[in-house]
């Protein structure tokens, strides 16, 4: 067939048009930023003129690289935060997998009580913004050694918490570990649930003991999932910003992300770009390893069978105590933080929990000049309400764009699977997942500060936030959609094609309705992630485009504790409520999208 004809039949298919346009758009929005970031590590920026002697803005320089990696200051600038990041990430993985794996095993393999409520509530810390637990930790355990009022724990017991307990690596690891434990729970639980019980029963019949079965059968089969969980938690923990910022700043405990924030926001953007680049490199490496592991993991899970009538391990005398303690601790982690936010937002003078100290000033007060520059209570505060409105508006727009593009991307990727173009778009759509949010924000900051082609300078506009959010969360939507499309046989659509049903109608009336739940979770995930996102937007917001999370961060930095707590409560309630509503209405849920069933 000659090229003209081949081209003609190529562009007649919607999936080809989608793939080609997505390839162009995504290259522009992900690959080019990568290149600019590399260039940025070699250029002199405005704020660095003082340090790089005799240079002009835009000059080529090796200053950043030598300074970050090979100078006497390198230890403070890079190596120390880098080691801290490694420590925090490994610690987080350890706690998350231990907790998540244990709960997954208890829920799927034993006769634990309250399974329903435990598995619902256990996901909770993952749905809540990551810093929720960090703030709760501060509310409880902060001490007066660093300054400010002590937390609830000290107020009640009179015992000063030591610094290592209140701030720095220990609480960061605990809080991140709790935050990502549900992630491990979902991944490991999924494998345990899908694993053919016959594999274990076969060993049982051969007279292997329970312990031996666990050691020789169950764990080896679950191991790839655990490794995969480990890598995903590791990369998430590595790019976490809010938690280390909340818990580490007081004792100057820096990790790569907080260090990146300081340098990008401060005098050395070049340093920040190098750190961003290194973090992306680690992310790519981790995902590469993960994909190899998943490739081999599949060979285990394809042998699934009737795992319904698995014999559950009888916990006997431990059944009730274990169930009660587990449920109790999960409730503690889920509900007590919320109570602490409510409590903190109603007290006048921080650290004083007597009844006459309570006030509604920070919620509905009109503001008094001696407190927080006369800032009115958050429900009457125009700028906070504007922030809320911005957050909602942003999340809705981002989820609409990411979700819709994700559906189209998934459709076209699966439709043209095994072609190079499809693989390219699939990888491009996944690429933003690898970029630490902060780094991603930084790239867009540098890329769109000036006019690019027909795109006007976007810095400070709301559109930039929508753009960066949509690209960053596209992986969630495209993954959900690719998964959904893989389950749908091609013939379902062809049955429509052959009857003359047009493409739009086939999508709207056949494909989308059938995989409704997965597609909706493709909208839900970006929405909720966006609602609670801080590090992605923190470099990009300006006073006019402020959103709730960045305001929370600012209020917290200013030490306006009550406002911060009130705003946080608002965000948590909003996120949880929207998750519950969507779940009830459509049956889609967040755990579906992140690897659950």
């Amino acid at each position: 067939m000659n090229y003209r004809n081949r081209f003609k039949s190529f562009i007649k298919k919607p999936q080809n048009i989608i793939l080609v346009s997505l390839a162009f758009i995504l290259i522009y929005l992900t690959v080019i930023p990568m290149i600019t970031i590399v260039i940025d590590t070699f250029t002199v920026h405005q704020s660095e003129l003082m340090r790089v002697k005799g240079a002009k803005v835009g000059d080529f320089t090796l200053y950043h690289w030598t300074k970050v990696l090979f100078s006497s200051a390198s230890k403070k600038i890079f190596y120390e935060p880098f080691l801290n990041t490694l420590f925090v990430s490994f610690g987080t993985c350890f706690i998350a997998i231990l907790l998540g794996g244990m709960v997954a095993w208890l829920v799927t393999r034993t006769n634990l009580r309250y399974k329903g409520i435990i598995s619902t509530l256990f996901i909770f810390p993952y749905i809540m913004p990551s810093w929720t637990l960090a703030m709760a930790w501060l509310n409880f355990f902060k001490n007066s050694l660093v300054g400010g009022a002590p937390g609830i724990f000290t107020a009640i017991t009179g015992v000063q918490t030591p610094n290592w307990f209140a701030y720095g690596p220990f609480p960061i690891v605990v809080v991140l570990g709790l935050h990502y434990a549900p992630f491990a729970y979902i991944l490991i639980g999924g494998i345990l649930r899908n694993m053919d019980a016959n594999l274990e029963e076969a060993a049982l019949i051969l007279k292997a003991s329970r312990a031996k079965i666990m050691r020789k059968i169950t764990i080896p089969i679950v191991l790839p999932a655990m490794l995969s969980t480990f890598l995903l938690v590791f990369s998430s923990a590595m790019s976490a910003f809010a938690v280390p910022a909340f818990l580490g700043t007081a004792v100057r405990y820096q990790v790569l992300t907080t260090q990146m924030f300081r340098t990008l926001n401060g005098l050395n953007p070049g340093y920040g770009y190098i750190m961003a680049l290194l973090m992306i490199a680690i992310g790519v490496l981790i995902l590469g390893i993960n994909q190899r592991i998943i490739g081999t993991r599949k060979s285990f899970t394809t042998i699934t069978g009737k795992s319904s009538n698995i014999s559950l391990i009888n916990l006997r005398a431990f059944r009730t105590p274990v169930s009660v303690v587990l449920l109790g601790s999960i409730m503690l982690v889920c509900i007590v933080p919320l109570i602490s936010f409510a409590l903190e937002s109603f007290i006048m003078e921080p650290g004083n929990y007597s009844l006459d100290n309570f006030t509604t000033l920070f919620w509905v007060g009109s503001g008094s000049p001696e407190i927080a520059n006369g800032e009115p209570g958050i429900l009457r505060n125009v700028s906070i309400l504007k922030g809320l409105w911005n957050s909602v508006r942003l999340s809705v727009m981002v989820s609409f764009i990411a979700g819709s593009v994700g559906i189209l991307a998934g459709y076209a990727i699966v439709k043209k699977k095994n072609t190079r173009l499809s693989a390219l778009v699939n990888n491009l759509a996944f690429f933003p997942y690898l970029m630490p949010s902060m780094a991603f924000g930084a790239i867009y900051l540098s890329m769109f500060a000036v006019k690019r082609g027909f795109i006007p300078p976007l810095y400070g506009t709301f559109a930039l936030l929508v753009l960066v959010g949509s690209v960053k969360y596209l992986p969630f939507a495209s993954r959900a959609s690719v998964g959904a499309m893989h389950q749908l046989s091609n013939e379902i659509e062809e049955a429509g094609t052959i009857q003359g049903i047009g493409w739009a109608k086939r999508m709207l009336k056949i494909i989308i309705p059938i995989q409704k739940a997965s597609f909706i979770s493709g909208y839900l995930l970006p929405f909720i992630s966006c609602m609670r996102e801080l590090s992605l937007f923190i470099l990009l917001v300006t006073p006019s485009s402020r959103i709730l999370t960045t305001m929370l961060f600012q209020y917290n930095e200013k030490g306006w504790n009550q406002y911060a707590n009130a705003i946080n409560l608002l965000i948590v309630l909003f996120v949880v409520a929207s998750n519950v509503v969507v779940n009830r209405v459509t049956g889609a849920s967040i755990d579906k999208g992140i690897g659950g069933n």
Partner: protein
Amino acid sequence: MPQIRLQHVTKRFGKAIAVDDLNIEIGDGEFVTLLGPSGCGKTTTLRMIAGLETPTEGEIFIDDVCVFSSEKGIDISPDKRNVGFLFQNYALWPHMTVYKNISFGLENMKWDKERIDARVKELLTMLRIEEFHGRYPSELSGGQQQRVAIARTLATGPKILFMDEPLSNLDAKLRMEMRTELKRLHVETGSTFVYVTHDQLEAMTLSTKICLLREGLLQQYEPPLDVYHYPSNYFVADFVGSPNINAIEMSGEQVNLDEIKLTSEDLNLLYTPTTSSITIPKGKKLLLGIRPEDISIVEEGTIDAVIYSTLPSGMETIVKLEIGKLLITCVVFGGVDFEMGNKVKIAFDAKSYVLFDAESEKNLASGTLS
């Protein structure tokens, strides 16, 4: 007038050739089966005619209208080819009721309500699924889903019906039943059926013509009984028929003008070609094809054999015989059984046996044995 014509159709996936320079004509009202082992290109061929797959080269005509031509850059979309397609897994839309599944295509053609209703009812009756009209596909058994899929395909009244292994997901009993139904449907609708299967029995029993493919190459395109009795090569002979044809390696020698002496370690036979006269150089390696039903166990037989094993099924008994070291399969009709290890006499007294070239596996001639 041929209804479907494929000219030099080739389909490549990357470097792999799925269909290689295929030329066939399918006449009006025929029931053609595309038969072959998996990966032979039969489904690809069907999908190319339907327009679901784009050929790399060649031309396809339906009712003398060119629907595809790589030369002229014609590629008419599937819905404008006025064809129906029945999928292997039925591809029923799970979120629509049986009624809606059937009516959806008609609604799309902007028929008015009463007409749609009448047509759907007609189909429901025709396929005997009236009582299921309000159900969802997941609430139906495999056979019922199959009927719904057929009804949906027939709804728009296509003149040509494509079927891609439609019975392979059914159990043996239902499959038998649906074969009967399909054959009846073929007569009732008067449409042209093109049917893909890897089951030679299905192809034999259903079709008016079999198109046998192997690795993208056409092997034979003839009515089922011709394919059975006059296979064009050993591959075809081996593919159709159950139990399989016996192939005995022998070396040939022209003895008289028209007779060939066939010898092997355990057998010596005289072969008389009846279809064409052939000349065999001495010592040429040949394959003698003997259908199991063309061996008779009779007292006046001339060859000694030992019963190796028997598989009686009531209607027939499949008997494995040992002639020296040679193991051959034969079929005896009626409810007879033999004692394993017994000595019997056999005869090759049927009208035709096929001779193949052992090297090229091509059919050389049909003839008799003595």
